């Protein structure tokens, strides 16, 4: 009798070791125990069932072509303003649907941040912190997953569709790493087992057996985390249907707009509806050093269509009041139009927007000067912005984590909640 399993039924020893070593490395560098000091806070927060969808404008959308137009000024550009449903408030003509839903947005026109390039800006606007050599800061999604996520849920607590962040769970550990979908919202290939259920079950038993042997004489939590990751992957098999949106897409195509970004936003709604606390939805190509106007003419209309579709859909389902929608990129764009018809990177004065959960609608906060060169009043730093987001989600921005003995608040020290934009 043939007593050995065929090769494909085995967990590869190399794969197992690779995963184990990587996980162990993460665990040994960080003070995991201290993280659980904040567990009580996390449990309290989860009762509120708040969620967050981050609409990430990768490359940096231009404030001049969206929310902070400078009509008649040399920096103004080619587009014109349109009125909104909030008296006195005007936006770019590229956003007619947003204009009709301005009463649901709080726009911050006075962002003043510190990192002007993409990698550092992406890090900054995903974590609230500049990069540091000895600390790997967690992304906002990881923090939200920790405080608002549900243990043992079938769906991951931090999902990215068209991922752009670069630090993931950071010092919070692999448990809070994002689960990334492809740009068209499909599950990654590794998430689906190609084994028959009975073989999959035998493989799982074997893995548990090997892990038990490994864990018996060791105190590190590597084996537990490894097993948790596998369990999460196995649970995900039960909810594959959530990721199949074709049928629902036919119904919602018009609401979200027939675009890849529209599909991603519909997917985000499906996920938060099923309890995922943080979903990031990316739209790329805003880095318009050349042809800024035609690029924004191409990118902004489908983006605003999907954005309004998302707001409307959430509102109709009674979810908007508990779902914070954050619209931002990593940088803004220069007031000066260069000789490639482009706008370059700029962080002295730019715009972001919030909607939904805990946010005052119909509000424009802060102001830039007449050419959009500097913030004129109410500057908002990256720390302030993150503190405000956490506050809106019911997470105390001063909550501290520890790496070693060093306390690290989830929003940087000295940050202030922009109370003016919150209810």
């Amino acid at each position: 009798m043939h007593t050995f399993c065929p090769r494909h039924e085995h967990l590869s020893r190399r794969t197992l070791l690779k995963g184990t070593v990587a996980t162990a490395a993460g665990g040994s560098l960080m003070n995991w125990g201290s993280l659980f000091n904040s567990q009580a806070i996390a449990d309290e927060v989860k009762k509120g069932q708040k969620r967050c969808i981050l609409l990430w404008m990768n490359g940096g959308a231009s404030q001049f072509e969206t929310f902070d137009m400078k009509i008649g000024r040399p920096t103004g550009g080619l587009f014109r303003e349109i009125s909104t449903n909030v008296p006195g408030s005007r936006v770019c003509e590229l956003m007619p649907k947003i204009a009709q839903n301005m009463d649901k947005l709080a726009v911050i026109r006075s962002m003043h941040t510190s990192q002007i390039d993409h990698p550092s800006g992406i890090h900054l606007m995903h974590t609230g912190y500049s990069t540091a050599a000895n600390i790997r800061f967690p992304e906002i999604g990881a923090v939200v997953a920790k405080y608002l996520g549900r243990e043992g849920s079938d769906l991951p607590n931090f999902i990215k569709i068209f991922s752009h962040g670069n630090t993931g769970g950071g010092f919070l550990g692999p448990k809070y790493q994002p689960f990334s979908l492809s740009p068209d919202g499909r599950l990654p290939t590794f998430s689906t087992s190609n084994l028959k259920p009975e073989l999959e079950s035998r493989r799982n038993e074997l893995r548990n057996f090997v892990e038990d042997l490994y864990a018996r004489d060791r105190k590190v939590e590597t084996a537990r985390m490894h097993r948790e990751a596998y369990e999460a992957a196995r649970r995900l098999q039960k909810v594959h249907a959530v990721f199949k949106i074709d049928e629902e897409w036919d119904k919602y195509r018009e609401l979200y707009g027939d675009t890849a970004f529209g599909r991603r936003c519909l997917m985000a709604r499906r996920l938060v509806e099923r309890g995922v606390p943080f979903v990031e939805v990316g739209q790329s190509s805003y880095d318009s050093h050349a042809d800024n106007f035609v690029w924004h003419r191409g990118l902004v209309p489908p983006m605003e269509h999907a954005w309004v579709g998302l707001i409307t859909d959430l509102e109709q389902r009674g979810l908007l009041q508990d779902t914070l929608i954050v619209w931002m990129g990593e940088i803004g764009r220069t007031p000066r139009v260069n000789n490639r018809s482009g706008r370059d990177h700029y962080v002295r004065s730019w715009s972001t927007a919030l909607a939904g959960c805990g946010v005052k609608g119909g509000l424009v906060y802060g102001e830039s000067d007449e050419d959009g060169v500097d913030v004129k009043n109410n500057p908002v730093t990256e720390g302030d912005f993150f503190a405000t987001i956490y506050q809106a989600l019911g997470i105390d921005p001063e909550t501290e984590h520890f790496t070693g003995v060093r306390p690290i608040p989830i929003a940087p020290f000295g940050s202030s909640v922009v109370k003016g934009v919150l209810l």
Partner: protein
Amino acid sequence: MAEVNGVRQSRRLRLAVKRVIHSRIEIMEINKPIQHWRLLFEGEWPTSVAFLGNGRRIAAGNRAGQIYFWDLPETPPEVDKDAKDETAPDFAPARRLDGHTNGISHLLSTTDGKMLISSSLDHTVRLWDVSAAPNGNAEVVFDAKDRKRKARGKSKEEKEEILSTPGTSVETVKASHILEGHRDWVGSLGISRDGKRLISGDVGSLVIAWDLESRKKVSRWSGHPWNWAVATALSPDGQTALVSEYRYKRDDFDIPAAALKLWNVADGTEKLDILKVHLPKLDAKSSSYGTAQVWRKFIKGGLIAADFSPDGKLIAVGQGGETDTGKVHLFDVESGKLVRTVSGHRYGVCDVKFSADGQYVLSSGRDTMVRICQVSDGKEVAALGKQRGGQFKDWLHALAISPDEKTVAAADIAGIVHVWQLQS
């Protein structure tokens, strides 16, 4: 004795025939082109240029929606042929055409030079009677940057004198007619050789064919709703329209969809899908990476400039956008097949025109050059201007050829209208 169209002709007869043809069609002759004028048009980018009737009356429009025209002297001043082109003289404009409220995308004129036609991002097409009585005067400064440059390092008094020099007084004129029907930026414009038909396209892919005499719409049609009508041209008889569509990025993984089609002007029906002839196996709706790459290779940043050859047998389309090398494709109108690809601008083509004799195709580009190539073999016979060095140094946004085929003008986004005489 040579044989032409099956008829044996003597040399004398052939010359006589050539003279008759020449009397109707100006021949472009190129012999050591020289820049005669360098007209300052500072402020916002000059985006468009057109000759009006002869090689001395030039109109140019900019991104702020301003249009000026210049009446250049009959005899240009002496130019030092060995000097750099920056030494070509400047000359003040005579008139300002007021009315557009957003950037000018194109300027065209009728062959008699009496009417100027402008398209704009303000959603309108305007017709201008260039000899109409002015409705006012205005003082304008075209050389603010130049003045600042000249004032640099001077004493305070000298600086003030330079900077406060009075501007130029120009007559102001209003449009004689406004063609309305577009609801978005009008980004493309074309006119038939007989000056009777006009075509305009907008960024919502709507195309309108107009009868210029009655100012009425002849037909209208739309392309793919996401695409822009980025270039339009009319056949010499005004019966066929060429429309190039392009979709600027909607996302990284959306295909930059494009179309290049011939349409019947009379009823707005499709005549020939040229891209399908050239790329028959490609499905525009496919989102595969490979498909996107083939599209991108052929279309680059959109086929953003187009023209019909004077005999209506060829069309020229230029690859635009910020690409490595922007080329001009020549297609056969009847079959839709690619005849050849000519020219080559670093970083993309901005404008394309055939010479009136159909011998040459001229293109301006993001490399700050006008390139003149023979249609017959694609050989580049002249290059006007000079590359400014390094990457991304301004563009020659548009070009125009004078009706006598002796002069070429180009709108330079650095704030200049260059005028070259093709024979020195």
